[in-house]
């Protein structure tokens, strides 16, 4: 079959392998563990390198080593693991090494739980570790993109010699959709001009992020900012859905944007002019485009599964606080009803609150349900269920 039903986490490894990734280093964490499992299975089948590291710190430093050797390398984790990796990621940025990091976000802070959330936005999009650096961040919203964006992440990492994130969440990692496999397989050739490979061509090379001299380090930082400027000029990427005539604009990424899209469809069915703006890359963030859109569209609603971390960037883009927020946290997936309620409130339209679209009383209605007869369940038959 051209298409196979594939889980999002598996699709990451499909993308990695067709994208020429030679090394995977990782540590188990729900809900990203399947990426580790699949890497362990498939990397080994083709003689590529896989190590289950002793910790996330070790994982990211193994990534640092293999990247310094010029190979395509990646790791994958979730919030708590990404927090541990921040040291390694700032070293990657400081040494200008390419690497791909996949973050399958779960709910925080602290240990939180393993439900979906988008609360890693700040630590991923804004840098995360110490120092003046940024990461390019790709935010897929389908299983196909989990695969395709992983390949793209390797290309961007090499192009800019920078760590690149694929930022997804527990839903995208766990769900399955038809995947069209990549059309070509990439064999990456290490770049001898900067890598350290243990051969004659690279023996003069040095990978480091230490500049003892203040002026030297300042100069390096200035150069680094030039790189980010180039990224901001060339790499902004977004997707617009029914934006042309929109009067209300939902701004949403990742799994939230999928749910927002369904909400847009429902609104359009009811003649409500609602559009969806989806940043495909979160860094660089599409500030300019949002600023343009604000001139035409009055109502902006940021839809995300965090305490409004992306909302801050939307506010920066439009230079105003005039943005509504629809959010869920703690592992609760956004419900279409959450979005429709806010749109109804903003627009005054009540027709979209029809129960045919969703159960708007989801949280309190189940207690009223009284469909069973009084003698309830035949306990014997339940025993057989458990057997």
């Amino acid at each position, binding site marked *: 079959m051209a298409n196979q039903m594939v889980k999002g986490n598996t699709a990451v490894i499909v993308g990695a392998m067709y994208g020429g990734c030679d090394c995977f280093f990782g540590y188990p964490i729900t809900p990203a563990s399947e990426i580790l499992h699949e890497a362990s299975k498939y990397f080994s089948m083709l003689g590529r390198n896989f190590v289950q590291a002793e*910790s996330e710190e070790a994982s990211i430093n193994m990534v640092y080593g293999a990247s310094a050797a010029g190979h395509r390398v990646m790791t994958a984790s979730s919030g708590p693991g990404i927090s541990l990796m921040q040291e390694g990621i700032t070293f990657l940025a400081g040494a200008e090494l390419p690497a791909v990091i996949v973050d399958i976000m779960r709910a925080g802070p602290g240990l939180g739980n393993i439900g979906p959330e988008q609360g890693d936005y700040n630590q991923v999009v804004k840098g995360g570790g110490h120092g003046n650096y940024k990461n390019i961040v790709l935010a897929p919203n389908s299983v196909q993109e989990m695969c395709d964006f992983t390949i793209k992440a390797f290309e961007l990492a090499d192009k800019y010699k920078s760590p690149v994130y694929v930022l997804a969440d527990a839903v995208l990692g766990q769900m399955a959709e038809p995947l069209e496999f990549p059309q070509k*397989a990439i064999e990456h050739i290490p770049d001898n001009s900067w890598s350290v490979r243990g051969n004659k061509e690279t*023996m003069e090379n040095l990978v480091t992020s230490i500049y003892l001299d203040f002026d030297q380090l300042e100069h390096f930082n200035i150069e680094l900012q030039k790189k980010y400027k180039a990224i901001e000029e060339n790499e902004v990427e977004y997707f617009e859905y029914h934006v042309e005539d929109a009067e209300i604009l939902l701004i949403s990424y990742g799994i939230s944007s999928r749910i927002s899209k369904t909400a847009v469809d429902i609104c359009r069915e009811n003649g409500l002019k609602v559009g969806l703006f989806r940043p495909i890359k979160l860094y660089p963030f599409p500030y300019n485009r949002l600023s343009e859109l604000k001139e035409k569209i009055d109502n902006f609603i940021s839809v995300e599964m965090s305490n409004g971390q992306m909302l801050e960037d939307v506010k920066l883009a439009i230079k105003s606080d005039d943005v509504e927020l629809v959010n869920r946290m703690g592992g609760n997936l956004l419900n279409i009803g959450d979005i429709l309620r806010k749109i109804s409130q903003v627009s005054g339209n009540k027709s979209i609150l029809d129960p045919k*679209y969703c159960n708007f009383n989801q949280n309190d209605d189940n207690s009223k*349900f009284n469909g069973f007869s009084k003698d309830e369940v035949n306990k014997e038959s339940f025993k057989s269920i458990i057997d």
Partner: protein
Amino acid sequence: MSNKNTRYVEDNKNNNHDKNNETIKNYDKKNESIENEYETIIMKKSESINNEFTRGNSLKTTHYCGGCGHGILTKLIGDVMSELGIQERSVMISPVGCAVFGYYYFNCGNVQTAHGRAPAVGTGISRAEEEAIVMSYQGDGDLASIGLNETLQAANRGEKIAVFFVNNTVYGMTGGQMAPTTLIGEVTITSQNGRDPNYTGFPIHMCELIDNLKAPVLIERVSLANPMDIRLAKVAIRKALQIQKEGKGYSFIEVLSPCPTNLRQGVKGTEDFINKQMKKEFPVKVFRDKSRDVGSVLRKQSDFSIESLDRIFNVERDDGKSIVDDYSFNRLNVKIAGFGGQGVLSAGLTLAQAACFEEKYVSWYPAYGPEQRGGTANCSVVISGHPIGSPVADNIDILLAFNKPALEKFICDVKEDGVIFYDSRVGEFKGYNNIENYCVPVYEIANKLNVPKAINTVMLGVLMEYGRTKNNILSKESYIKGIEETFASKEKLIGKNIQILEAGAKWARENLDFKF
């Protein structure tokens, strides 16, 4: 020194600024008068050590303090690199600590790393580049404190790296703090009354710790206290790098080394401290050398060909099928729910596979986590003629419920024109808001075919019949394809499940009167 009248002078054509050479010239001039009597002999420095320390910096002199052991160890390693002819293959990892600038001196590929992480970085380099000779040069704070885990784990994996561990009982670069190796009673800036084991425990013995692991090939402790010790240290370094040259695995050399600056010691003081105090705590010896007993560690070559990739992922390139948008077919939300272990998730996957086979847009989203392990389980399957937004069945068209909690949890989300199929063992169910509902004796049907566990497939059979009668959403062929995919790894179950699927459909045909 040699008593032959041979003179080895470093070729310094390009080294006009080399202070060392200037000094030598001046020395030569001063001693011109006695040159007839004594020949000045300069041992040729090995190629593996740089003449000028220009890499990443403009220093011309070393950054190490006078009397420090690092300079000696650096020279010994460089000499051995040249003697073994491995300079080009060598990759030196510089740590955080006094040896952070190791790359000034070693004339080979260099990677500078975060504090304590050198063995992990070494693992990455060594795995990526099979032929590289990877050396990790670390101090006691770096290796035995912050990087202890990485150290032990890399040793335990038997990584192909040589670790040189400089033990001088003190943090050097940061200004003389207590190290894990600081001796009892030893005064440092953070143990000002001497290290007290009641508060800070005892010195950590790295060779002894690593000697508990099976994988390492060589474990040895040496000292730099005096010329004889230095010669023996070089022998150990040579063994460690020979092991790397042959790709045999992990070698660990601990080097007892002087730190006159931080420990406020003179020449005699450092020698005495190592000989009389450190060696008592850290005996100098070979802990293990199995280099003669082990062969090279060989790992496979990476394969990047599309043929191999397509083979491992079972990709068939030629059928040319692709999803076509059909806006007349709106999304169908299916929720399947029951106990973990009832095949709820796999039934959903089978249904999704069937839809995938018919080139429909489809998504399968499981409730995952602890619920999978014996509690309630459910999944959403959304099938559509056009791209799917939310993968969650918020408003349900079809609910397949295998237990009472599942019915309770999701019944309020079923659309008015939706349909419910439920396991007959749920008990008497009076219905809800006049939503169409059917009681299916899944257990009896499955049990009749001697596979009581296959209740999920029975339910799919009923759904197949329902779909067939209603608007022919998915064909029987697609359901069978779905079963084949779901049970691909348990082939003998495929035939039986197809039989059960048909039995479910037959029962529905004969017993249910669908209202549409």
